[in-house]
């Protein structure tokens, strides 16, 4: 019996959906095992079709993208009702992802920036989109633009998380195969990834770390063998779950933490802050400040993908 699956994308870029397609010939195996009942980016099913299903009809719902507006939330709740297992696919659903960085601003600040102040916009009257508008044909409405971006599990209960931005296609396949092979690990675990930090699979040589200056990747020609952090380049690999095969590092760029924190780390960004601060070289206050000046925008760099899932979740208004 084929599994009945629904795929949806919330506040997302579609990269996760593309990653599913990127399983190439494995897609056929997936298709052989699964019938897809909803996939807005790829197939023309309607929400009403899903609403007509009775509860728990779908075997699994694969939800990528964060919860940024009321529609994302509505469909998340809908899919939750209609499916036995809810899977958060990709960094946005798992941690809030890049959209999550919006949690440093309020709803009004963003609308004003996008529709009024942005350099390429001419909008003297300051018109911004409204949630509903009456026209001859009737009432048009738009989903409400939420003030705070949320992760999927902050809105509905989620059984499994497949991390990554985007998740490595092969890992998606292996994660899905757990379902039809009925080898799912305990509820709440992260699948399609390792349970150690990226350093374990990183090809670069790691030694003792004492950092006296930080630089950005485009300012230097780093030694190809040596660990990025030891060369004063901020690399979040040490605090990020492995599973991506160190694809960024292999293409010469330090890790930015998209696979999320390890199991019992409640806040990836603050944990990395502690790790990096501990290995700074100076002991005097003045020199410590000089080194810290060389780290660009530490909070957002350390929380690039995980702000909504961090302990404080957003900037206090």
């Amino acid at each position: 019996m084929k599994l009945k699956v629904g795929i949806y994308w919330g506040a997302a870029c579609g990269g996760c959906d593309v990653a599913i397609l990127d399983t190439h010939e494995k897609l056929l195996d997936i298709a052989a095992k699964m019938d897809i009942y909803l996939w807005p980016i790829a197939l023309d099913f309607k929400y009403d079709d899903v609403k007509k299903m009775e509860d728990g009809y779908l075997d699994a719902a694969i939800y990528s993208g964060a919860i940024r507006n009321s529609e994302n939330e509505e469909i998340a709740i809908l899919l939750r009702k209609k499916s036995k297992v809810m899977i958060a696919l990709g960094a946005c659903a798992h941690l809030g992802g890049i959209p999550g960085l919006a949690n440093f601003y309020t709803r009004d600040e963003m609308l004003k920036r996008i529709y009024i102040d942005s350099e390429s916009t001419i909008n003297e009257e300051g018109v911004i989109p409204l949630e509903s508008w009456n026209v001859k044909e009737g009432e048009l409405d738009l989903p409400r633009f939420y003030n705070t971006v949320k992760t999927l599990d902050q809105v509905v209960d989620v059984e499994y998380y497949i991390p990554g931005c985007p998740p490595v296609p092969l890992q998606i396949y292996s994660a899905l195969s757990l379902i039809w092979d009925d080898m799912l690990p305990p509820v709440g675990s992260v699948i399609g990834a390792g349970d150690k930090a990226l350093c374990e699979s990183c090809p670069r040589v790691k030694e003792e770390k004492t950092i006296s200056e930080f630089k950005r990747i485009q300012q230097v020609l780093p030694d190809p063998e040596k660990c990025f952090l030891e060369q004063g380049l901020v690399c979040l690999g040490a605090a990020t779950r492995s599973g991506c095969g160190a694809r960024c590092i292999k293409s010469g760029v330090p890790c930015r933490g998209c696979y999320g924190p390890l199991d019992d780390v409640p806040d990836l960004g603050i944990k990395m802050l502690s790790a990096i601060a501990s290995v700074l070289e100076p002991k005097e206050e003045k020199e410590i400040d000089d080194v810290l000046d060389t780290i660009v925008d530490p909070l957002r760099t350390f929380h690039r993908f995980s702000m909504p899932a961090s302990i404080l979740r957003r900037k206090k208004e």
Partner: protein
Amino acid sequence: MEFEPKLVGFLCNWCSYTGADLAGTARISYAPNLRAIRVMCSGRIDPTFIIKALYEGADGVLIAGCHPGDCHYQEGNYKALRRYKLLKRILPEYGVEPERVHLEWVAASEGEKFAKVVNEFTDKIKKLGPLNMKQSIFDSMKEDIVVHESAGEEKGGEADEA
């Protein structure tokens, strides 16, 4: 009723905790707002504890360790200083006044200084007013509540935290 700040203190066992005890044996009275958690060394204090304390309702967090060079484990306080300096830089990004987190070196013999530090820190936070971090996060989601007729029940908005 006047705002009484809730302060959490992380005191290192060998110097600041002993100093605090000394303030006790010397019966030096000081503000009651600080609740102390004993750790073996200021180097043990993970910035995550401080963020967690701020989230759980602390209006201010005090980190107290041995004077540089006095650390019972020789260098723990230097790491505490480095983490403190980086943490202070990011607090404004969270919309939290950096003065709410304060580091002070208190020796085992400085009972009086400990009392003074607690009093001054309490006054400073009193002036800053309450932080209410958790409450402000949920307030920010107040308008994010929408009744979804398709789902049949009202959800969202007050979702439980992560």
